[in-house]
């Protein structure tokens, strides 16, 4: 099993981009995340799977402090990005989210032009000195979002006028415009048809050349297709974390086995 050739699947580096240790999350009285320890690799796609309410999205949202916006939510433990504590008081969550971008379940372009959707982040973070530089960032981002060819002739058209799959790729382009190091994706394909899903999955595979990608998905087949590492969450616990091929052929925990084979567990 171990010498199975995985040329396509080689995990680039053993190096951890994000190190989470003893992470606990409470929503009021609810203990949503229990003692999670995990290393998220650089230039790797990591999939979080598990039944609804298992904590996978909550944990994902800890990684760029999206949970800060929820009053009753308390996060304990350590989450290090390149060795630096992202919950340190000196860390500006807005700056953090430029480095750790996020793509949501439902495509949510701003009610602005395609151009302005992508230019928004670089503008507020002052990444471009002039219009020419901004143009360049927008084009580069739309290319990385694998949507440039479809929109290059109508950059002034509203982003909301695109199809669902195009909107989602626009949102990915918007997320990469601030040159993030990590891209968090919460069910990025659940509102898309199979063709658009395949395009986004292809894009995810390209993005991993450059970024560390973490994807939450309810589709186990999608996790199997796009990720190199898979984490299975259940009732707030990280039950099993391993190489995706191993998780899907020979999971070590009976709860993982029950879940991925579609048994009542």
């Amino acid at each position, binding site marked *: 099993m171990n010498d199975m050739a995985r040329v396509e699947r080689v995990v680039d580096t053993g190096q951890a981009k994000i190190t989470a240790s003893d992470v606990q999350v409470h929503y009021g009285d609810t203990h949503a995340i229990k003692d999670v320890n995990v290393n998220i690799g650089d230039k790797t796609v990591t999939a979080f799977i598990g039944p609804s309410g298992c904590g996978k999205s909550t944990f994902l949202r800890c990684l760029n402090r999206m949970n800060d916006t929820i009053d009753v939510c308390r996060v304990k433990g350590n989450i290090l990005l390149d060795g630096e504590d992202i919950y340190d008081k000196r860390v500006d969550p807005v700056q953090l989210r430029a480095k750790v971008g996020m793509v949501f379940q439902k495509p949510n372009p701003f009610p602005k032009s395609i151009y302005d959707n992508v230019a928004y982040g670089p503008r507020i973070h002052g990444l471009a000195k002039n219009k020419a530089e901004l143009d360049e960032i927008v084009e580069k981002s739309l290319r990385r979002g694998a949507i440039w060819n479809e929109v290059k002739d109508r950059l002034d058209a509203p982003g909301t006028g695109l199809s669902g799959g195009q909107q989602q790729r626009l949102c990915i382009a918007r997320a990469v415009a601030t040159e993030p190091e990590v891209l968090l994706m919460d069910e990025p394909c659940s509102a898309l048809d199979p063709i658009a899903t395949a395009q986004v999955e292809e894009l995810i595979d390209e993005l991993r050349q450059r970024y560390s990608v973490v994807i939450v998905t309810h589709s186990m087949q999608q996790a199997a297709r796009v990720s190199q590492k898979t984490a299975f969450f259940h009732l707030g616990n990280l039950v099993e974390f391993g190489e995706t091929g191993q998780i*899907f*052929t*020979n999971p070590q925990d009976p709860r*993982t*086995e*029950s879940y*991925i*084979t*579609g048994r*009542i567990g």
Partner: protein
Amino acid sequence: MTMSEQHIASAFDRELESIQAHIMKMGGLVEAAIGASAASLETRDEELALKVRADDKAIDALEEVIDEEAARLIALRAPTAIDLRLVLSVLKVAGNLERIGDYAKNIAKRNTVLITVPPVNDSAASLRRMAREVEGMLKDALDSYIQRDAELAADVIERDREVDQMYNALFREFLTFMAEEPRSITSCMHLHFIAKNIERMGDHVTSIAEQVIYLVTGARPDEARPKADKTSLTV
């Protein structure tokens, strides 16, 4: 790891049961073919030999059914983990059983020739003992498959050594016969091929047992299986 739990999709469970039932049916036919081919050799029963040859068609047909069911399962259910290992093992086991069936059929063919010439000592009885050993191994391998019993499967793998040793002994015996009595060469060549067929059956049973270990543990058996057939190196 045994999976006694049911799938949420109950049709998936029924499909997995069906494919395993076909494996068991095929296994039963193959066990019978081994027994009957060896019996027809010892009792010089031509009718039985012809029956073994005819019955092989049913074995081949079952393999096709199993291959088709497995392909459908992979396409429609996208099995993972234990389910995936089950489907993969089913394909290999069906292939092994089909090969064993072919060897039995080949023995039966040679029997129809051997019946027309005088027997060579008690070699038919020795071959039947060897076939009984392999038949017993196959029965246990199939039991270990259904019971998900990796220990029993490991025991079956170990027992192949005996079959190999029986083959070595027969190989030397046939060489001696042929050297002493050139008129026995035709018979001895057929008998030797029969011995080799039975030895190869043992290898296929071993492969089935290895599939059981993979199915149950998710890992291939760690040690290379015993290889006690030394005749390839005999001068």
